[in-house]
């Protein structure tokens, strides 16, 4: 027995391997991977004793054969009997379990006198040629046997293979083997191996989006020793098919080293010999094994001019989904035919992988038809209908007011009327920059009732950004309660309190069409300035039509308006509530920054529909786990950033998914908040699902290659979104609009090119795999790194800049933006650069670190080589830092920041951010310190200041000290 008890002990001591590729089958140690077998018909009457003698003689001659086993099974059926066939198949499929037995020989003798020899050997001990020779030598001991000196042995390599980006394997099914027939076709004699390798390489290159298909190759034939090496074939679109075939023809004979570790994909290329039944492997040697066999013209006189090529795909379901396997096999078969028929001069790019029929099927899988008749009406008309139906029901609350639907309708009418009095006309844009109170929602509704589009701006945005937004949007009027809203020529800033209107009663609707723009939301733009996304009214109606029935949205629901109106998640919250008769509770900004206070609010208002970014939810969940108060939440909608479903493990324990549904939604501002929806259940956690679900009814998703061609299922590419949510355009950005909102020649539709990387599953669900370009998400905020870089480059003191995502990607609170800057003069300080950047960028876009360099490392292509950047220079704590401290506040400071900062060091300069501020606040509470509101932390960002604040508060015995929010 080759498995030592130490191995077993080690395996038992190892952590539970579920979820990993090797969970169910220890791939590296499965002897069947490294064994091959041969069945040879023996002369009638061959008896076991003769074989035994011959074997003994052979072992004498070749000590390496020592330990070879010989068994005899006398079967009471004829050789042609089905039972005999089953015995042959079973014997030829049994692995030898390694040392000390290099091979096993089984003599099957049948009732009719016929006999078969079944030889199974470990490749380490015997290659194809040796196996063939041994079969002969067992009946003819004088026949030479050449044993390999150092045979290909990949079985010792235990490392897990890289995940196959297009495989869609299910880790829970790891260890289950599947097969798919690739093709079986006549190929001109002699070219079969090249065609097989070239076809495999071409499909792998397309699936993997590479020019050079790399894979492990094992070859073996009766005439020569086995080889095992890594090969790379030129399968880029521009390559000549003939060159690819030529390279493939030589790949088996020459080429690289044996691969290290088990690659995900390997090719097995073996030659058939007439008479024998040869099994090149008993279990696939690679997670995905493309096993080719080709026929020779034979030694038995058959004068074949045509050889045959047959292939089988063996795969592990942990790595490759059966549907994807079938698709891959179909593509390989198609390419084999194409290569055989390729005219001279044909290019690899001319060979089509996905034909029109298949493309149509993939497109159809990503499309969800709209349900029923879509409601096509402006948002305010939809609202008025709801309000008329339930005038006395609560519509909108903030800490100070609750408005009924009738009151909200009237108040927003008044705003609309007053806006008209101020000269706002249908089609205008109106800026709205208000704190999160009921007034904000009244104003937004008033703007659309006036026939205008609202342009939301967050009150915390820096002046330069506000100015840009106002001027870019062409708004001539801005609703703001801020005293210091930056003035611009020709722009009137109006305080909402000035919008009282003398005339009472409903105003006439502006009419207008569902195609009018309802709102313009600015998102990060790589050019250095945010870009305005213009979204028509009809999209909002379509979004609600697509989700109301499935999510059961209705008058019984209470929604929290948690997000800034400048973030389009708020579109979902506001109109989701108000267009379905629900009750919208406005969450004040500082409550939204405190998970404790927000939890209180959820409990107090019995909120039922909660929309969150995963980052924000993670903190709320921590609070919820510590509390006993019952949430009334029945629906959690995730959006804004990728969801790591593992986070939900403990949430589900307290909130079973049968009582509180959890829905992960993928969406983009340009496609009206949401695109897909995936209900998450505890089962998804184990699978580590990355699925964002199917397209919403009326929406469609597809995944494309760089030329816009439809990618097969599983193959990553750019996500295209079509259907009811596609926005109108980018304001004042015709070129960008034309580049992103495109006419899709495949479907004839207008689609949005998302710039997101994804793959479509055969069931129509989409996996979101990140960004193609430099866009990143930090704590739920969508950020173009290019925008930050542009702002830095506009600084006269800066000659070059790069911005990268740094910190700990696995911890939302530790993710940070690192800036690398080449200053124009030596005297330029980080503080100056940071200060200027903060004037243009919202807080969440200001890099956490600034590193000054004399030059940026560049790649050969002249791009910034981000991998060559040194670790970010973190701010140096002041002199007092590092000393032990008695100050409990400073101790908490150091614990949360993980740095020995001094009492006068600014929290936000030393890596602090909004999430860490929340952690700091919680840590202060847990340290038994009096509560410090988040607003206070922003105002007093050093430990010394907070200590002083607490001391002062104690002196005046002010128990709370919360400024009014």
């Amino acid at each position: 027995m080759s498995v030592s008890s130490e191995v077993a002990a080690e395996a038992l001591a190892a952590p539970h391997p579920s979820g990993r590729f090797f969970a169910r089958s220890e791939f590296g140690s499965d002897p069947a991977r490294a064994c091959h077998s041969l069945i040879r018909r023996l002369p009638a009457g061959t008896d076991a004793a003769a074989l035994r003698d011959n074997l003994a003689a052979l072992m004498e001659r070749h000590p390496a054969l020592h330990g070879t086993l010989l068994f005899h099974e006398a079967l009471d059926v004829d050789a042609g009997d089905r039972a005999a066939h089953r015995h042959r198949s079973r014997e030829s499929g049994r692995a030898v379990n390694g040392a000390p037995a290099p091979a096993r020989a089984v003599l099957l003798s049948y009732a009719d006198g016929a006999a078969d020899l079944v030889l199974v050997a470990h490749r380490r001990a015997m290659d194809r040629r040796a196996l063939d020779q041994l079969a002969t030598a067992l009946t003819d001991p004088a026949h030479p046997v050449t044993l390999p000196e150092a045979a290909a042995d990949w079985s010792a390599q235990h490392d897990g293979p890289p995940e196959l980006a297009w495989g869609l394997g299910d880790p829970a099914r790891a260890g289950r083997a599947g097969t798919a027939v690739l093709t079986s076709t006549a190929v001109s004699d002699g070219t079969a191996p090249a065609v097989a390798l070239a076809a495999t390489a071409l499909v792998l290159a397309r699936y993997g989006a590479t020019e050079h298909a790399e894979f492990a190759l094992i070859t073996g034939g009766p005439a020569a020793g086995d080889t095992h090496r890594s090969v790379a074939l030129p399968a880029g679109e521009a390559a000549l098919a003939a060159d690819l075939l030529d390279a493939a023809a030589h790949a088996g004979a020459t080429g690289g080293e044996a691969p290290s570790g088990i690659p995900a994909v390997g090719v097995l290329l073996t030659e058939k010999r007439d008479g024998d039944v040869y099994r090149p492997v008993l279990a696939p040697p690679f997670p995905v094994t493309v096993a080719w066999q080709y026929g020779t013209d034979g030694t038995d006189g058959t004068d074949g001019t045509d050889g045959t090529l047959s292939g089988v795909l063996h795969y592990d379901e942990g790595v490759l989904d059966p549907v994807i396997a079938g698709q891959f096999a179909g593509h390989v078969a198609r390419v084999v035919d194409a290569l055989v028929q390729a005219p001279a001069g044909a290019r690899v790019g001319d060979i089509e992988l996905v034909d029109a029929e298949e493309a149509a099927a993939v497109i159809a899988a990503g499309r969800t038809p709209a349900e029923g008749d879509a409601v096509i009406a402006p948002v305010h008309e939809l609202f008025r209908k709801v309000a008329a139906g339930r005038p006395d029901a609560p519509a909108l609350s903030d800490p100070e007011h609750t408005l009924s639907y009738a009151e909200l309708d009237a108040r927003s009418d008044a705003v609309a009327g007053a806006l008209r009095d101020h000269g706002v006309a249908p089609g205008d844009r109106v800026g709205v920059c208000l704190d999160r109170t009921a007034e904000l929602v009244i104003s937004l509704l008033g703007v659309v009732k006036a026939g205008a589009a609202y342009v939301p701006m967050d009150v915390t945005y820096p002046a330069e950004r506000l100015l840009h937004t106002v001027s870019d949007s062409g708004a001539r009027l801005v609703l703001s309660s801020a005293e210091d809203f930056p003035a611009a020529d020709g722009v009137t800033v109006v305080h909402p309190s000035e919008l009282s209107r003398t005339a009472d009663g409903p105003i006439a609707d502006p009419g207008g069409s569902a195609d009018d723009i309802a709102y313009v939301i600015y998102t990060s733009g790589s050019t250095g300035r945010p870009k305005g996304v213009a979204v028509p009214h009809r999209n909002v109606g379509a979004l609600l039509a697509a989700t109301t029935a499935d999510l059961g949205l209705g008058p019984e629901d209470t929604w929290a308006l948690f997000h800034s109106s400048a973030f389009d998640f708020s579109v979902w919250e506001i109109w989701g509530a108000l267009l379905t008769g629900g009750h919208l509770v406005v969450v004040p900004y500082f409550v939204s920054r405190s998970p404790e206070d927000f939890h209180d609010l959820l409990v107090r208002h019995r909120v039922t529909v909660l929309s969150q970014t995963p980052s924000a939810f993670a903190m709320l969940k921590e609070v919820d786990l510590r509390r006993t108060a019952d949430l009334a939440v029945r629906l959690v909608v995730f959006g804004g950033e990728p969801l790591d479903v593992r986070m939900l493990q403990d949430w589900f324990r307290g909130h079973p998914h049968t009582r509180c549904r959890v829905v992960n939604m993928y969406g983009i501002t340009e496609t009206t908040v949401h695109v897909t929806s995936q209900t998450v259940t505890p089962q998804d956690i184990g699978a580590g699902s990355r699925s964002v679900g199917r397209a919403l009814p009326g929406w469609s998703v597809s995944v494309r290659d760089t030329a816009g061609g439809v990618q097969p299922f599983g193959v990553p590419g750019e996500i295209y979104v079509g259907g009811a949510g596609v926005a109108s355009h980018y304001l004042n950005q015709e070129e960008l609009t034309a580049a992103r909102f495109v006419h899709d020649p495949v479907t004839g539709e207008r689609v949005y090119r998302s710039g997101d990387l994804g793959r479509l599953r055969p069931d129509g669900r989409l996996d979101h795999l990140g960004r193609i370009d430099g866009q990143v998400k930090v704590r739920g905020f969508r950020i173009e790194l290019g925008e930050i870089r542009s702002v830095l480059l506009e600084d006269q003191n800066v000659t070059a800049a790069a911005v990268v995502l740094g910190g700990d990607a696995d911890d939302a609170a530790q993710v940070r933006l690192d800036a690398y800057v080449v200053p124009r003069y030596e005297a330029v300080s980080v503080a100056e650069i940071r200060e200027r950047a903060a004037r243009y960028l919202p807080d969440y876009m200001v890099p956490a670190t600034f590193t000054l360099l004399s030059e940026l490392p560049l790649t050969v292509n002249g791009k910034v080589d981000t991998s060559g950047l040194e670790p970010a220079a973190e701010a140096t704590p002041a002199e007092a830092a590092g000393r032990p401290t008695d100050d409990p506040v400073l101790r908490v400071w150091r614990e949360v920041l993980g740095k020995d900062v001094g009492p006068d060091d600014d929290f936000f300069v030393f890596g602090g951010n909004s999430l860490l501020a929340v952690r700091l606040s919680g840590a202060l509470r847990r340290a038994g310190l009096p509560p410090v509101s988040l607003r206070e932390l922003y105002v007093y960002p050093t430990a010394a200041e907070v200590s002083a604040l607490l001391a002062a508060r104690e002196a005046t015995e002010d128990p709370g000290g919360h400024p009014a929010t």
Partner: protein
Amino acid sequence: MGLRDKTVVITGAARGIGRACAVRAAEEGADVVLIDIGGDVPEVPYALGSASQLEQTARLCRKNGASVLVATADVRSRAAVTAAVTAAVDRFGRIDALINNAGVGAPSGKATHDFTEEEWRVMLDVNLSGPWHLISAVAPVMVAQRAGSIVNVASTAGLVGYRHFAGYVASKHGLVGLTKAAALDYAPLNIRVNALCPGPVRDDPAVDGQMTAVVADALGIGYEEQEAVYLESVATDSLVDPADVAGAAIWLAGDDSLKVTGTVIPVDAGFSAR
């Protein structure tokens, strides 16, 4: 063909429940490794499985299309068991299931303090250490495979006590405990361990079964009398057949019971329902 292409090791395969399991496994498409002592043990007052009975089981299995490996081994000997398992792996390359069936019902029939040291020891050695030896030899194979099913044939004496059967009852209770502990050890590696607790089993001549006779002898009563006592104790109007036990064992050995591990299943005609 629930065990198609699987390899099943059965101890105590010469006759009785062991033979019933072996033949059933062959019918279900498995290749079988048949282990039996093939000889007697001085402390055991009745004849144990013989080499010819073992060969008869092998014949029945071959008739059903199985390849068969026969090994003579006393389960009390760790070395003999390890050699048999090594031979099994040499021949078949893997082991998918182990049916730990070998056991003795006597020496019994006396009060707890009346057993001799040797009598006590032989009972525990065969019925408890034997299965442990088999598990110890087979587990490394199954661990490497990340797959396997172990079925321990215990007894209702692993669930309740019987007068004058202290050694037997203790060993079978021990086997039930071994089952649960081993199940926990191997569950993360996709290896399952379960116990069957056969109730009063009829002596089926088709498998040379004789356990009821052994019990009757131990208690100094006749076979018919013992059978009547048994019939009194069960809920059905007939006793358990070896084939009934084999049916449960084959289910546990195969993939139909994929999520069943650490369980103790009585096959006792309703005996333990009372």
